[in-house]
């Protein structure tokens, strides 16, 4: 078993608190993504799990055993780095063989030239060779084994780095933004490959990224971190549809969620800008709230209809399948973004008056501090004001 338990881990650098008591349980065989903006402490947490950095407080256990006092080598974890961190003066083969050589062979057997005459070294070398070639074949890099990292493309280096991590069958794979240095097309392709690889190996993956689309597409669960704290740990689906914090809602999803200030108007309604929305907030009348509305819950329509929000079209992003209409609304600094079918893209004239209808069932309510306010299932009723 190879579950990873992070228990109230804190880390302080000189005068910065990088991690503030983070607790997280990663199940055996799970693909867990640590998601957050740069500087949120996610990479620090990963390095603490690897043993490359020591935590200030708290403990880490892997496979039920406390590993706080073990050096990285003894933790049976492998890591893939953003820069790949392949040894530049070794071939791909030597890069991949090194972790096995260091683990399986004695110092005497490892000696250059002389080592091959030490008892047992030939058999060990053959075993290592077989392992390296097997992993290389599974990653389709057998033909690159004799090359140096400088002679490889970004994607090939990425595979070689994965190979070096896979070759010793570690309990846990730690990945620190491994796709960030690839171009956009290759990145999308590698996402699928990584998810496949995870299913094939059945090992525990802890994956660090600042890219919410990577987190959403590959993970079993996502842990969203901000300012050294864990905001929410959930499956991609519930993270997107049921965020516990406005910062999570804003970080996950593209385009960014629309945030509209409002006040609880009655037991069943919230006043947002000049519209009245049928949301039953579990909060006293008069409470100031913020409404988080995903663009797909908003539909652009005629200015005269029963629209919740009214404004003028500022910009239309046509992606082919969908189009996103940016609507400048009085009282809001940023335009509201509403989604429409891509075939409607030409309907919206820049600068013309437009209304936006809203599906009240899918509105997320947050209090002034950004915490989620539960909404009772609202009557799907929309009413315009004035």
């Amino acid at each position: 078993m190879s579950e990873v338990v992070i228990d109230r881990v804190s880390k302080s650098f000189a005068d910065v608190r990088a991690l503030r008591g983070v607790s997280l349980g990663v199940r055996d065989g799970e693909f867990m993504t640590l998601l957050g903006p740069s500087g949120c402490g996610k990479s620090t947490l990963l390095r603490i799990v690897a043993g490359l950095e020591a935590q200030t407080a708290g403990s880490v256990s892997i496979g039920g055993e406390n590993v706080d006092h073990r050096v990285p080598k003894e933790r049976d974890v492998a890591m893939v780095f953003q820069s790949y961190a392949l040894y530049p003066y070794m071939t791909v083969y030597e890069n991949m063989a090194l972790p096995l050589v260091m683990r399986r062979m004695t110092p005497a057997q490892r000696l250059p030239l002389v080592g091959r005459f030490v008892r047992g070294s030939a058999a060990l070398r053959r075993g290592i060779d077989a392992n390296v070639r097997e992993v290389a074949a599974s990653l389709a890099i057998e033909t690159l084994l004799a090359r140096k990292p400088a002679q490889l493309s970004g994607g090939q280096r990425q595979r070689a780095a994965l190979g070096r991590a896979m070759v010793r069958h570690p309990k846990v794979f730690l990945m620190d933004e491994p796709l960030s240095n690839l171009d956009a097309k290759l990145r999308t392709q590698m996402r699928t490959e990584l998810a496949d690889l995870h299913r094939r190996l059945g090992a525990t993956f802890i994956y660090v990224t600042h890219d919410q689309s990577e987190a959403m597409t590959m993970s079993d669960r996502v842990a969203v971190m901000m300012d050294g704290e864990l905001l929410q740990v959930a499956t991609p689906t519930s993270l997107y549809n049921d965020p516990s914090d406005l910062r999570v809602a804003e970080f996950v999803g593209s385009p960014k969620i629309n945030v509209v200030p409002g006040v609880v108007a009655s037991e069943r309604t919230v006043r947002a800008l000049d519209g009245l929305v049928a949301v039953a907030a579990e909060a006293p009348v008069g409470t100031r709230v913020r409404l988080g509305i995903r663009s797909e819950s908003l539909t652009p329509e005629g200015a005269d209809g029963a629209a919740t929000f009214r404004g003028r079209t500022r910009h239309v992003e046509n992606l082919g399948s969908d189009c996103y209409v940016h609507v400048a609304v009085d009282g809001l600094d940023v335009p509201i973004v509403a989604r429409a079918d891509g075939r409607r893209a030409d309907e919206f004239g820049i600068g013309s008056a437009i209304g936006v209808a809203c599906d009240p069932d899918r509105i997320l309510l947050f209090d002034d501090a950004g915490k989620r306010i539960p909404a009772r299932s609202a009557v799907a009723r929309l009413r315009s004001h004035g």
Partner: protein
Amino acid sequence: MSRPGVAFGVFRHVVLLAGAAVMLAPFVWMVATSFKPPHEIFAGELTLLPRQWHAVENYGQAFTKVPMLRYLANGVFVTAAIFALQILVAVPCAYALAKLEFRGRETIFTLTLFGLLIPAHVPAIPLYVMLWKAGLLNTYAALVIPFVISVFGIFLMRQFFKSIPDELIHAARLDGLSEFAIVWRIMVPAAMPALVSFGIFSVVAHWNDYFWPLLVINSRELAPPPLGVAYFRNEEAGHDFGPLMAGAVIVTAPLVVAFLLAQRRFIEGMTMTGLKS
């Protein structure tokens, strides 16, 4: 190219050629003199090539009157020993200062920088006294030990190691390499250009060193080349400049040859083209 461009190009090359001539003239004269018989050396007129070749006699004397080969061997042994030990000390020190985190690291590095500011001649007398107390005067050890810790080497290697990404070291730790293995198997191969240029600085400085051997060496059989040439001048040659210049040529030649062979690596090291991931 326009005319002012051509004019400037010519001017620039004239200046550079003049500079090169000033630098090279003493060497050319040294080589020319080593081929001349005594009466031509003291003749009133200046000629580059000798009218009467005296090279065999001069070089013959340089090799026979003093143990020139012995001096050269001493030089090779001493500079090689110094450089090997300098690497042994400087590389782990530089790694610690560049990549390990420990209390007082910055203070130690600052002290190292202070070390760079102290001229080699300042600690000469204390070092001499220490070697005398240790009974090591007039040995190879006296020529080697004072230079084993090269502050310059530590500084140079530390700067280069700084440019190597931490992730490489993290990967090595996860792969099971010890800190020493990281230093010698990961950092040193990556820092080859820096090591080569440090090697050139070190070898040139210690091959040419005259001051320190003069202080600590009495026996002729331990003398490195520059000291050997000096013995030659004082006792054997008198006013016989031909063999003396032949000796000087012999002493200088190995460095020139080594430079020509390593020129490409040397310039690589000077420009410090590091590794790009």
